[in-house]
């Protein structure tokens, strides 16, 4: 796995993964919540770059738009509306944290082991088409139109629900 030629793709992959991992680690280790959100945004951006590497431009675009844009702002709004302590000063729960770390590490170990021992078949060449957006659009509205419609219903329900949940109680 490690005998890969240093190509441009590999260098780009390396940079983006560094950004992502750095952002994720920072997220769980920083003190202030707002800083955490910022590092998350960095992760989202790195991920977008990865998608470009994977020849999924439209997904990368959507990722930046929705995650780095909307979701991060949503989290900041959430933080603002719930008067938090500016700094996360939490009483340490060493047992809980250690166990969680151990569990996460073990899970990673299992996944890593699975990945390493699987023999992936030689991939056939990938034909993304000329225009990724057009290809996705065609596929979406022909083959996957029913999930698409369902998803729109879901979104409608979600935003109605969010409004109902978050509005102030009517003074009765």
């Amino acid at each position, binding site marked *: 796995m490690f005998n890969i030629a240093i190509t441009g793709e590999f260098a780009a992959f390396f940079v983006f993964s560094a950004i992502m991992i750095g952002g994720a680690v920072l997220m769980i280790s920083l003190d202030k919540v707002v800083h955490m959100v910022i590092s998350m945004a960095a992760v989202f951006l790195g991920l977008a770059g990865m998608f470009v590497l994977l020849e999924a431009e439209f997904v990368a675009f959507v990722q930046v738009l929705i995650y780095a844009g909307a979701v991060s702002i949503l989290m900041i709004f959430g933080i603002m509306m719930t008067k938090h302590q500016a700094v996360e000063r939490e009483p340490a729960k060493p047992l*809980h944290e250690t*166990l*969680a770390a*151990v*569990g*996460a590490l*073990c*899970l990673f170990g*299992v996944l890593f*082991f*699975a990945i390493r021992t699987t023999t992936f078949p030689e991939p056939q060449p990938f034909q993304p088409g000329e225009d990724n957006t057009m290809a996705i659009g065609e596929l979406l509205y022909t083959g996957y139109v029913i999930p698409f419609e369902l998803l729109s219903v879901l979104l409608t329900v979600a935003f109605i629900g969010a409004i109902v949940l978050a509005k102030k109680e009517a003074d009765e």
Partner: protein
Amino acid sequence: MDRYTQAAWLIPLFPLAAFLVLTALGRNYRRAGVFIGSFGSLVAFLLSLLIVIDRLGANEVDYNYSFDWIVIGDYTLRIGFEVTNLTALMLAVVTLVSFLINVYSAGYMKNDERITVFYGYVALFTFSMLGLVLSDNLLSLYIFWELVGVCSFLLIGFWFTLPKARAAAKKAFIVTRIGDAGLLLAILLLFWYMPDHALDFTTIQSVFDGQSGAITNGITTLIALLIFLGAAGKSGQFPLHVWLPDAMEGPTPISALIHAATMVAAGVFLIARTFDIFQDSAAAMETVAYVGGFTALFAATIALAQNDIKRILAYSTVSQLGYMMMALGLGSLTGGIFHLFTHAFFKALLFLGAGSIIHAVHTQNINEMGGLGSKMRVTAWTFAIGSLALSGIPPLSGFWSKDLILTIAWETNPLLFIAGLAAAFCTALYMTRMFFLVFMGKPGAASSSAHESPASMTLPMVLLAVLAVASGFVETPWNSSFGSWIHDGSEEAHSSGVAIVGSIAASFLGIYIGWLVYGKRSVSRTAFQERTPWLVKLLERSYYVDELYAAIIVKPLKLLGSSLMVIDAYVIGGIVRLTGAAASCAGRAAARLQNGQVQAYGLAAVIGFVILVAAIVGRRFLP
């Protein structure tokens, strides 16, 4: 005319039925107890008498009826009953004495609240003893042997509210248990070595008689010694004699029935039944003879210094049983059985007389009695007859049986002859002492309110006195009809002038000295005590045997018991408590998981998932 013999199996059933009825009736039917108990034993006695009469002719065949009881593979255990002349004799003796005791207890136990229970136990004992006598194999004999021990325990501890009675009952049971263990080992050995694993007496007789070499001499000796151990336990031979004097805590009719006439005779009976095994082993015979002779002298000397009327009689019983064992050990079945026969009557008589005295003066210390002869005539006369019979004065029965034993001793083992003579002297002496202190002289502290006992108590005594006089004539040195009858063959009579003269001389000497000291008072009572106080103390405390046992056996056992108790409380109890604490700790630890926090639950889910996956993946690597 075999038909009564065939019905012999009915004999134990009457007392058994009496026991069941009395147990069902409970404590309220006091008069019923008397009648049902007496009726049961009376019917049994009449039937036994008919069987004895049946078999009085010469050369009667032994009757045996048995059926297959347990079949295991190719081994069959048969069980049934057997009527030989010996068995018939024992049946008659046991049922007669039992009947007389039933009648006597009507008067003696009249004011006792639990009289129905008493009669129930007596009936159960009679049943067990009769079953023991009628058994045709060692295993069923052992079953009844144990049952007899249980009845003895129940009856000794009849007044269980008294701590002494409880202790005596336990002691009796435990000491005889030691003997019973020996008997059980003997049965196991016989089971192992006998051809076909047969345990019935007929087969034992045929295997050991003539000794075809089927069983080696060493094993035979071992078996015989183990059987003797069992007999020594039940019959109170040294060193297992310690329970008999303490057993006097029970009611006096019980002492008469069990510890004079019947149960203690079971040991002698056992040896008589398995006599062929003993005859095969010279070493075992010698052991039996010497132990018997030693016990006879040993117990007689102790009785000289006792002050409790029943204890004197108890040690006297031990001594006389020693005579019986000595006779058996010297090779004379007739001697042992004949003495058993006569002893049953005069010892029961003496105990009943003692009971009559105790009933009248409410004390058991002979030093507090005196001058009762004038107030209790019947008791005094019958007691005198019993004492003379025990001392061996001709022509009473005791003389003939004791003389037979001494004759055999003179012929085979002069050392034991001397011991027997010395014991006879002591016997005469202590009986005379007791008689004079109780019945003659000035009235003692307790004698003022004495009066004769009711007829229910005196009639059995009179009957036994008649038997004590008459029963000796069946076997004289010139006419051995009893011996022949027991042996199913002819037996020559033994007679020896030295023995006759010696035994008469010893008895008269004993009576004379007793009269000098206690009757005429020409020699001071305390003369002996002043010169050798240590000797008197030694005899009084029965050679400190009880103290010795307490120090050597009882104390270490109690120590072991308390240390085991400590182990039980702390080690085993600790383990139990530990298990409980562990369970509750585990519970408390698990409860901490239920803290209502989603993150904790999520963590548990992740850990569980990881373990599950690891387990499934890890199976790949297991060899």
